[in-house]
């Protein structure tokens, strides 16, 4: 059994609320999750379920108020901000929106060199690394001189992936990285993610709301609902035979691109909703 690379235990994230005496908002209510080296764990849920917060907690961008996050045996939550900055070479990120995640006034070359210059890599070395990165994500070498606005959504997302790869990280948090992309672009960017993983052995925490995306890239899946993980398991199991009622409803809600199959799925969803309503009623009657 391979030792986990990332080990989250009972992680709690709380955002302070406005007002003096109001309770802080609990975005994560004690979440535990492991990711092994080279593994892709899909994190599925609706907006507000806490899936993005979980990724931000690992990145040090969300206020962790309880539990522990260990990366390669080191406790992230206990690190000083200087030590935390050093983790940049191990944990990286690709955000959802390729339009706001690249500074519009910097050239692609400057954007890709940024993580390198933060580690005092020389100009020459940085330049050749940028060229290497562009090649890895299949962008032409002259892209380095251009500004983000000259690129389409899919191309920008390739730039964002290249930036994440710049320091050879061991874990990349992918926060809905293909949701904003066109259908045909989406498939190609997903292929790129898988290919990079197979070549470099980097691990992914892949946050998404799309069942098909998660099925295509993840080894394992965790389903989040209201700040907790309600179901987890091997991708094939969770996506084909979900056990938790929430997962079942979530799966049935996403339409299949096949009119006949979709008609069946629609009927199945109606049945699940009816069952749920009945249970709610009974629970109400008991209470």
């Amino acid at each position, binding site marked *: 059994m391979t030792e986990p690379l990332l080990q989250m235990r009972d992680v709690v994230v709380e955002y302070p609320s406005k007002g003096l005496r109001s309770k802080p908002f609990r975005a994560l209510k004690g979440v535990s999750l492991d990711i*092994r080296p080279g593994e892709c764990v899909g994190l599925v849920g*609706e*907006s507000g379920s806490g899936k993005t917060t979980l990724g931000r907690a690992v990145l040090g961008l969300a206020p962790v108020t309880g539990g522990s996050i260990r990366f390669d045996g080191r406790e992230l939550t206990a690190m000083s901000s200087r030590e935390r900055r050093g983790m940049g070479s191990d944990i990286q990120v690709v955000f959802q929106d390729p339009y706001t995640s690249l500074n519009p006034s910097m050239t692609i070359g400057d954007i890709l060199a940024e993580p*390198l210059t933060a*580690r005092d890599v020389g100009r020459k070395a940085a330049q050749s690394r940028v060229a290497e990165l562009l090649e890895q994500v299949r962008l032409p070498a002259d892209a380095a001189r251009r500004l983000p606005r*000259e690129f389409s959504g899919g191309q920008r997302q390739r730039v964002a992936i290249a930036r994440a790869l710049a320091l050879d990280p061991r874990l990349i948090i992918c926060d809905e990285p293909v949701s904003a992309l066109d259908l045909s672009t989406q498939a*190609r960017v997903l292929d790129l993610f898988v290919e990079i993983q*197979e070549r470099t052995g980097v691990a992914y925490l892949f946050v998404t709301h799309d069942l098909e995306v998660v099925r295509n890239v993840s*080894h394992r899946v965790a389903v989040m609902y209201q700040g907790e993980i309600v179901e987890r398991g091997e991708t094939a199991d969770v996506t084909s035979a979900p056990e938790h009622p929430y997962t079942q409803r979530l799966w049935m809600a996403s339409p299949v691109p096949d009119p006949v199959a*979709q008609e069946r799925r629609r009927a199945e969803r109606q049945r699940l909703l009816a069952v749920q309503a009945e249970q709610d009623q009974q629970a109400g009657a008991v209470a």
Partner: protein
Amino acid sequence: MSDLPPIALPPDTRSPDASLAQRLLRDPLGLVSLVFLGVVVLAAVFAPLLTSHDPGVAVLQDVLGDPGDGHLLGGDSAGRDVFARLLYGSRFSLLGAALALAVAVLVGGVSGLVAGYFGKWFDTLASGAAAVLMALPGMVVLLAARSVIGSSAWWAMAIFGILLSASVFRLVRQTVQSVRNELYVDAARVAGLSDLRIIFRHVLRVVRAPIIIQAGFIASVAIAIQAGLEFLGLGDMSIPTWGSMLNDGFSRIYQQPLLILWPSLTIALVCLALTLVANALRDALESTSSRRRAVTLAVPVDTVDETSPAAGTAPTADDDRTVLRVEGLRVGYAMPDGSTKEIVHGIDLDVRRGEVVGLIGESGSGKTQSAFAVMKLLPEGGGILGGRVLWKGRDLARLSERDMTRIRGKEIAYVPQEPMSNLDPSFTIGTQLVEPMRIHLGLNRAQARTRAIELLGRVGIQNPERVFRSHPHQVSGGMAQRVLIAGAISCEPELLIADEPTTALDVTVQADILDLLRDLQDDFDMGVLLVTHNFGVVADLCDRVAVMREGHIVERGSTRDIFVAHEHPYTTQLFDAILTPENTRHPYQAPYLPTAPRTEASTS
């Protein structure tokens, strides 16, 4: 999997900075003002070369002398040369303004940066201080300061700079706060950049432009206030300044009216020029960020050409259930250089009552533009270039805006992609539902209210009366979309145009909204034109579908046919891109990780 095709990029474009300067110079007012300010500054610097007179030397015979005769603008009340005093005066006036400006930008800029970026206690403290400074009456503070520290013009301007720093502080703080939440700043943080580096690389770039613009306004206010103080006789009377010249001219206004003209003209022109330059700069900067929106309508695009396809008769000809028939519709946008760019190249489409027609395509395919053209709601600069939009025997493409208003909302309704941005945050949901019904259906207030609550119930809202009274920010995105759908069906339209109605919603909410649309379409026997990029949505809802690519419809047919037997290569390409369960990833295997050759970047 690895043989992905290389990605083509559009040809290189000009650098943005060059075009910014060009835009600035193209603004005639900005250019003239900039040249004028340049002349004033040069005149101040080279004053000794421009006049041989000493601004401080009084010559008795030149007292209140007329212009000419060795003194270009005459002499003042003490017999000093007015032109020389104006030239030398600009040194002190400009330097004074520069001092105030420097203090304001330095104090306000730095504190705004710190407060905006780090927040916490410093933000609270500095924001409070800025509020106090803004509430203080500037003139009174300066008068009080003079009685304590004497008549030094420099001190007065430094203090005034501190008063002005409050406005810079607010501007910078607000700008920094919005940049701080940008994803690219998060990415920089994850990359391991220190806060100082992030400020220099990402934050300062964004703050720079608004500060430069604000600086123009601040300098002009500083010059005016400084002149005001000196005019009151509170300045340093030993040095020549524009304000003291005003004072002198005012006291001799009956003997030599021209005396007051020169300093006031100079002050007015300099202030005007500073403000105009700031304005021109702002315009130039704003047009970079929205190049496409700034396009003006160079050609009257809405004048439809007469070469539209074969004159057909009313759409009732072949099928009396057809409500909308689009023939050869072409849509274009006016470009800044006066040309017209066509983006929809002649599409045909029809929608029958009780039928859902899907218009599917990727971004940039022209699907949304086509839908907007049917409602004649294209953004500024866009218009119908040709073709016909037949609606009950009338051609909407040729209809006046007035007649169109009567059809839109009543006969053709619209459901947008972003429910939240289509509700006005300052009105309750009820008001926004009631208003169109009163106009289109002529209902009175009470009737419209009853109907609105009925409709909210009809679209599956649990507590319609509470939602009726709520403001948009109090409801969720899914609820807002239900409200908009209720609004869309309120006038019982014959056609509903839905532009990606579920794209911004969660899957579970999406499924509910799709069910609702299906229900309503059945009940009202509406035609629906559904714009989407999601084949799942098409499979769920549509009877027929048209596939769009680069402004053309490349394939169309019944939904089942398209899904089972599509023919066009582009459609095939789209279907191939759909992720399917067959591609489920294999279970995890611990990777064989050789001692990977890490770059020096990560090992150092």
